């Protein structure tokens, strides 16, 4: 598995977080495009589809991440989406994308809790893009 020629879209409203993720992903050999929110992400998606997207949940609106995920899957269901959220630990509200029922409304392949460990993120990315 090689990271070469893979384009990753990272969406987060925290500019520092965005910068950090971009650095690490670029160091790992990916090409990275970023968006700082729901609207920014939709604008990017108008122009190009990434090979995988890492999307934060709470941005302009508490459910911005869901909207972005939904949009990506509508355009191309084959593009893997990782939804990143601090929601579970903050509110006790739990959701995941492990069963079909959950995936019917959470349009993501994997849900990761913030703060994410980069190694785990990278493992999930490689798994999801395998064979793509």
């Amino acid at each position, binding site marked *: 598995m090689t990271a070469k020629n893979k384009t990753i879209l990272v969406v987060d409203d925290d*500019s*520092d*977080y965005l910068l950090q993720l971009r650095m*690490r992903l670029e160091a790992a050999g990916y090409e990275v495009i970023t968006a*700082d929110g729901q609207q920014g992400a939709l604008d990017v998606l108008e122009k190009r589809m990434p090979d995988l997207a890492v999307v934060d949940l*709470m941005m302009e609106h508490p459910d911005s991440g869901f909207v972005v995920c939904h949009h990506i899957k509508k355009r191309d269901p084959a593009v893997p989406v990782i939804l990143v959220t601090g929601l579970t630990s*903050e509110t006790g509200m739990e959701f995941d994308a492990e069963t079909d029922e959950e995936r019917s409304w959470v349009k993501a392949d994997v849900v990761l809790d913030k703060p994410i460990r980069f190694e785990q993120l990278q493992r999930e990315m490689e798994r999801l893009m395998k064979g793509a």
Partner: protein
Amino acid sequence: METLRVLVVDDEPGMRLGVARALRGHVVTVPEIGEQVALRVDQAETGERALEMIRSDAPNILLLDYKLPGIDGLDVLKQIDGQRGPMATVMMTAYASLDTAISAIKKGAFDFLAKPFTPDELKTVVDKAAANIILARQARKLAREKRQARFEFISVLAHELKAPLNAIEGYLTTIRDRSAGDDEAVYSEMLDRALVRLEGMRKMIFDLLDLTRIESGKRKRELAALDVCEVAAAGVETFATEAAKQGVTVALDADDNAVLTADRGELEVIFNNLISNAIKYNREGGKVVVSIRGDEAGVKIRVRDTGIGMTEEESSRLFEDFVRIKNVKTRDILGSGLGLSIVRKLAHMYGGRVTAESEPDVGSTFTVVLGSDQAAEGSGDGSG
């Protein structure tokens, strides 16, 4: 229209029929919340039958005769104690002695009716009971909504406090592992960003403490006749360095008659938030004008800037908790998203309000109108 259920318990058929007839078609209006309810009347002729009916499906209002053939009205009252829920009981008694009434009310009755009573007397008491039920229900709904709002506030707060922690942790880990290459300048930039995020977090905690103090009402307020211009001048002074750093000039256009009975700390919080915003969201070489006008009714504070401005949609959300306008222009500006929400809450305490007018890339004007403080005139609490 909602229908409340009334159960009339009396061994005299004439009494049951009379009550049912008097309440048929009667509509109760609850003026406090402008709600109307209709009534449906069921009947029971003994205490035992009444208990059965209450246990299977409790009515909203129970009209209970004191003297019944089997167990009496007080026994019924005793047995339904604790499972009464939102049911209002009215005792009907021919022995309208004060003792009977008191013992019934002690056992949880809402009111009593002395027999014989007229249809109007009956309606008056039933109206009261119905209003009581509707208002209690409304109060429970409000309490639930308040808990919900609290929950949302805390969720967002946790999110806002964790975001800088994650960012700082990310930078520190990168610096420790030297995982961003050999350029030392990159690491020193990361340290600066980490410090900026720490500062933002500190600001958020301070704003949060301000907000908690205001909302709890626990803080000792010291109300005095204050020269608002003097407080404004001190506020302008506080931000002189900050303004100079941003290349923004701040002018004070004051009116000598602006005297207000207020808590100095609260006025300072208002000025600090408005002036600091006007500087932060300004442009290089921009201006801020703080103007104060006073009359008998109160004081009008206006803070105008020549900054980045906002769209109408953005300014409509501005005064809610944790709302920060996020766009390319505000990306590098720190804020807790609580400042204007605090200003709004303070303005309300002074019987006033805060409004914003804005135009993108031209600037914003915030106007705060403060009346004399309610508490200052009312309770006399802490005036001096």
